[in-house]
């Protein structure tokens, strides 16, 4: 089933989106209790890059070597970033296996991500100037508390509560997906894609990497591929309606835009609220109502609609 939500402020200023997304996602817990994920766009202090990565998954065996391995791999990540010429500002340990690192770097981001992911069990969850992807098992409130999202302020963000249907319940299978190797692009999806293997084989031949067996990962990688060929977010999303099969409603975000796309059968729900101040979207109106203490005017977009808002 899955539930998706998104919020974008039009004024471009920082708002407490960590808390707001949590309220929205928690109210849709019934749509997916397996895992919760956020893609939030913050306002980094030093203007550098932010990378979120994990060194073990929720299902990685916690054997005797586990803690020692995490320590060694963490040092290895820092060494490899340093060897690439990145100047590290800080490395935060969010959980024993998930980290956030802020750094300055001018080189190729794909190379950087590849070199980090070459370490066993390492996965770059997000990479960009403002994008931060946080995902873990459990409901929104537990992920919120675990990763300290209470003081996360930003301009826009999306979130996802997952009811796993296509792949394992673990962090690699949780949304949102980062559009590797594109900085600041992420996707959440509600639905099932039926031509997954066709696109996976095709995109792998083009040099894209897949970290899970979840069909939703295709959308992020597909959009990254299209945008690397010069298309805009909106053009890529329009094209995806014809090229991806199945039932889907997805939200894609970039550094300054948020877009939604709905398949031609309109089989997955989406409710939309638009005002001068912000745009809020969610699978159910009850999520949007967490942001307002009054009655609001909302509507459902129709089939084959692609809507994009700029911040």
């Amino acid at each position, binding site marked *: 089933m899955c539930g998706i939500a998104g919020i974008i402020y039009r004024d471009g200023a920082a708002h407490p989106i960590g808390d707001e997304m949590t309220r929205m996602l928690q*109210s849709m817990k019934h749509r997916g209790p397996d895992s919760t994920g956020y893609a939030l766009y913050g306002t980094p202090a030093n203007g550098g890059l932010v990378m979120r990565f994990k060194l073990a998954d929720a299902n990685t065996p916690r054997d005797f070597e586990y803690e020692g391995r995490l320590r060694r791999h963490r040092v290895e990540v820092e060494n490899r970033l340093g060897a690439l010429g990145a100047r590290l500002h800080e490395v935060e340990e969010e959980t024993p296996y998930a980290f956030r690192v802020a750094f300055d770097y001018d080189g190729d981001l794909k190379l950087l991500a590849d070199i980090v992911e070459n370490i066993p069990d390492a996965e770059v969850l997000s990479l960009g100037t403002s994008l931060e992807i946080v995902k873990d098992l459990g409901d929104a409130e537990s992920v919120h508390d675990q990763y300290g999202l209470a003081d996360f302020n930003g301009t826009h963000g999306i979130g996802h509560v997952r009811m796993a249907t296509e792949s394992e319940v673990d962090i690699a299978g949780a949304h949102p997906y980062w559009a590797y190797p594109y900085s600041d692009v992420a996707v959440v999806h509600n639905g099932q894609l039926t031509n997954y293997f066709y696109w996976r084989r095709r995109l792998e031949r083009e040099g894209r990497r897949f970290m899970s067996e979840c069909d939703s990962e295709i959308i992020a990688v597909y959009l990254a591929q299209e945008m690397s060929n010069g298309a805009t977010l909106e053009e890529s999303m329009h094209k995806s309606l014809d090229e991806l099969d199945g039932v889907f409603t997805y939200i894609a975000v970039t550094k300054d835009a948020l877009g939604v796309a709905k398949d031609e059968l309109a089989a997955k*729900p989406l409710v939309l609220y638009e005002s001068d101040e912000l745009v809020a979207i969610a699978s*159910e*109106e*009850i999520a949007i109502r967490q942001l307002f203490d009054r*009655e609001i005017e*909302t*509507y*459902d977009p129709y*089939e084959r609609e692609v809507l994009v808002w700029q911040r």
Partner: protein
Amino acid sequence: MAAVVGERKITYDARGLAEPFAEAPRTAVIDADGVATFDAKELTTRTINLELRRLLYEEGVKEVVVLNPQARHSLGVGILTRCKITFEGSLGYFGCGVIDGPEVHIKGRVGWSACENMMSGVVVVDSNAGSLTGAAMRGGDLVVKGRVGSRTGIDQKGGTIIVCGDAGLMNGFMMQRGRQIILGNVGPGLGDSMYDGTIYVGGTVKSLGIDCVPGEWTEADTEFVARKLLIYGLGSPPELQKFVCGKVLYNYDSLEPSERKLVI
């Protein structure tokens, strides 16, 4: 951080039934005219419905006003008595499902599957509605003053659905009886695989579904549409197109048990 719709407070029994030991909160105030009003803001879905049932079935109240429904799912379902219910706000999914008799006014919007399997009564929605509105509806009138999502009146078996705005794709999909009056534009696949019934459309039709064809307009249609719109104060009818089943796919001659009795 504000509390979230009491998700953490809700308990479930072994069958998955929410709040098995919940009791009606008895917070409603009944005024001199016999109108009961209660605030749903702090209540859970189940306690709202329990309070509604207590008022209608135990107290014998004929008119209830529910404040702050806050787009919660499954409110006002299974009400099987003649009464008047007003929701001062929006409902979530499955609002007013399986009702038989009530006259409901929703001063907001409804989510997916509003009034599914409605048997009789009237539901008026002031704003928009989600997809699958009036699914498998068997009788009564459902009026949506805004726009509706996709597959409105899927499997409709009776009653009338009136939509003042636009409608999405596959309206009246597999509809078997009843009528739809859509004053706005409709999406592709109108009346796809419909068995019977009539769909009136005021705006443009993107495309017709399989076995849905334009029907012949009669005096009875004019009278019916004008009467329905008059009842709900929706003004005089615009020029409408009529669509019916082409009966090319129609290979069924069996009757419902109730009809069989009439024939025999």
